[in-house]
């Protein structure tokens, strides 16, 4: 009899005891690195909302803007497809919070029309610039505005990642929108499985 299986078993037990079973993500594990979900914003139905409104629901948070030419629509499309890959019963069990960091142009009505295109799980949120700055700082991200061109269009720099929070509001995983759909789906399933 060798000691190895015993040691492996003990190590697994020790790990489970302190932090729950380790999850192998395709994205980047941010458990303990990022703070819990917390915000005060305005929803696409012009209501003022906080993270408590999604308590008990796993959330995927994305910072973007509706005039975004490539990254945002690409990522939202990828998420929409990943959600379709979930078992039917699970699809309603999560929310995608699209936080617009361009409150100047993105009115709640505009956000409503934008998110409706991707699916019922998608909710548009925005806020005043200080509110958005606070939230971005909390998750170590930022955004910035380019100078407007002749037609008034300006580009906005923003995070390209999706922040995954479990149903307890704990930050778990950072997903890149360019992950293959099946791997996105796999990570979302793992997020939903955390109780």
């Amino acid at each position, binding site marked *: 009899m060798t000691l190895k299986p015993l040691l492996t078993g003990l190590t697994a037990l020790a790990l489970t005891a302190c932090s729950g079973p380790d999850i192998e993500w395709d994205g*980047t594990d*941010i458990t303990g*690195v*990022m703070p819990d979900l917390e915000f005060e914003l305005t929803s696409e139905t012009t209501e003022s909302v906080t993270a408590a409104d999604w308590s008990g629901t796993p959330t995927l948070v994305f*910072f973007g803007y509706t005039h975004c030419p490539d990254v945002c629509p690409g990522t939202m499309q990828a998420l929409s497809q990943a959600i379709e890959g979930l078992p039917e019963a699970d699809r309603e069990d999560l929310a995608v919070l699209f936080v617009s960091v361009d409150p100047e142009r993105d009115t709640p009505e505009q956000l409503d029309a934008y998110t409706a295109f991707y699916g019922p799980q998608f909710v548009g949120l925005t806020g005043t610039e200080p509110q958005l700055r606070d939230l*971005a*700082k909390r998750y*170590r*991200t*930022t*955004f*910035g*505005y*380019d100078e407007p061109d002749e037609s008034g269009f300006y*580009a*906005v*720099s*923003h*995070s*390209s*990642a999706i922040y995954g929070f479990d149903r307890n509001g704990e930050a778990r995983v*950072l997903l*890149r929108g360019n992950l293959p759909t099946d791997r996105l789906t796999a990570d979302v399933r793992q997020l939903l499985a955390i109780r």
Partner: protein
Amino acid sequence: MDWAQAASALLPYRFSWLAVLFFGLAALAYGRGIRVLSEQGEPVSRWRQLAFWVGLALAYGVMHTRFDYYAQFMFFIHRGQHLVLHHLAPLLIALANPWRALAAGVPESRFKAFLGSVLGSAPVRWGYRVLQFPPVAAFLFVGLIFFWLQPEVHFYAMLSEPRYLLMNWSMWLDGLLFWWLILDPRSPLKAGTLGFGKRILLIWAVTVPQLALGARIAVSKTPLFDVYEVCGRAWPIDPMNDQLLGGILTWIPPGMMAVIAMLIVLRRLLHQGETRPLATQGDTP
């Protein structure tokens, strides 16, 4: 830019007690030390004072003002931050040779006696000797640059506040140790400091790998550090331009500073050989 805006640019993006205490105490001790030494009839030269204050202000400026915000969200500004923390600021402070002034600035008290006994204790002295053993010092200096620029390590350093602070403070403190080893003005012959030839070799040994790393980043055709994409940049900029600028900042200015440091050491080496002839010249006008 109005006054309020200018003032807010001086405020830190993330407040840190460590920075306030470290830089605040260093500034107080040095300022007082200068006065004490000058009262004792041993004034510190103007240029040395200037080198100290500029070095200290630069390091504080890149760590604890609005600059730090840009350093967190733009790769090339982050490289500029480390250029200051690891090269420029500690090099200036080492040139200023501020230790006597700093020591004179700590008021005579039980605290000073305690500080003296801690710094003079065997573990601290041995730890310092190990860190300043030339191969270890060179390995640490280059190793830290390479370590924090591994994409995976860099990613988490930018995401996690404690790791970010660890990264910046390790660069800054290591910069002070290394440049002091190189620019220590005490004579190798009389005080047993590192020989001038070895110092030049050491500068060369740390600079070549850094040049290679900087060049590799600058010429890379693929994005190496996607954390800036993931977290968002301070303003819209082509990611490849950001990386190119960052690579150049890792590559060219440290090379130039290494050359300047070599020239300073070389001058001291030559000066050392000429001590006697110079003295005799002085004797026979």
